[in-house]
């Protein structure tokens, strides 16, 4: 009888010990670097200042496909790195009305890929990256190659998202305008 209770207690506390071990590994292994890195980047952004970023953002509003690289690649990256989630989306102000959904899609998709190198962009959602990264560390592998590739693939993906979403938005706007020019049936 007593043995059963002991076994039960051991099982119960074992659950928390398992979690505590994981907690300790993450706090010791990740938090110190994160704190120093965050401080450095926060200070850098304070030195650069908001006005300089706004000036750059105005470029993204220009028409023409060659500016799509600025709209869906350069501006989302600068916005996310400098203003972080969620303030980055305020940069949509500088983008023409019909491009706003695609800009948002590109920007919001970039709040996780840089986390391995620039964790300041979204410290509240660090574990989208860290969850898998902790496992890779536990397997005894270096995180840097994965972090770099995550960032680079992220760049390709956000540009693609910008283009695809823009394509869909253009179709929907065209359809709505066609519907509006037809005589109202109601």
């Amino acid at each position, binding site marked *: 009888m007593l043995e059963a209770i002991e076994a039960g207690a051991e099982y119960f506390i074992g659950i928390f010990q398992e*979690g505590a071990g994981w907690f300790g590994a993450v706090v010791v292994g990740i938090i110190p670097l994160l*704190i120093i890195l965050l401080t450095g980047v*926060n200070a850098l952004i*304070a030195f650069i200042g908001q006005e300089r970023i706004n000036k750059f953002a105005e470029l993204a509003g220009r028409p023409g496909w060659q500016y799509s690289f600025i709209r869906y690649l350069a501006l989302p990256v600068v916005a996310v790195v400098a203003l972080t989630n969620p303030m980055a989306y305020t940069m*949509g102000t500088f983008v023409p*009305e019909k491009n706003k*959904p695609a800009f948002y899609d590109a920007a919001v998709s970039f709040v996780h890929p840089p986390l391995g190198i620039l964790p300041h962009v979204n410290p509240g*959602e660090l574990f989208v990256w860290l969850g898998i990264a902790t496992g890779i560390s536990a397997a005894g592998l270096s995180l840097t190659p994965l972090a770099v590739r995550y960032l680079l693939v992220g760049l390709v993906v956000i540009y693609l998202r910008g283009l695809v979403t823009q394509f869909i938005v253009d179709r929907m706007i065209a359809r709505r305008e066609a519907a509006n020019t037809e005589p109202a049936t109601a």
Partner: protein
Amino acid sequence: METLNRTLETIGRSVGGVVGKIYQAGRDTIDVVLRTVLPFIAFVGLIVGIVQGTGIGQLLADTLAPLASSLGGLLLMSVIIALPVLSPVLGPGAVIAQVIGTLLGTQFGDGNIEPRFALPALFAINPQVGCDFIPVGLSLGEAEPETVEIGVPAILFSRMITGPAAVIIAYFASFGLYS
């Protein structure tokens, strides 16, 4: 004497400014670590404890590991998460992505999944990113209500294409990783 004073004052002021900004940056950092990062680590730690300590982990490992160790399985995962009905529900706080990511992480740690699959997996767990936040995000960019009306479905449908596409791109970008 007066010029020297003025120079000293300018130097002192700019050094003070620099120190102040870095100090403030440190204050912001500690704030975010204490308020957001550490509580989340505690939350995930409890989930990891329950999952690993009770043996659910083994069950999940048997389901998730095969899914995450092939391109087809990861694509399936991304398509399900990107469904326009599910993606806005799964979005908030990226909690789902973070929990699935952590569970997958333990599988990578145990060597049940080839490490190169970490790259496509990072995209497969996250095609819903920001889908819960579209109206707010668009309003932050001062979008008109008509734009929000079109933007929400446009982004949700777009994710059905770009979610799996991201997994495929990441899969091909993972060649040579950890080999």
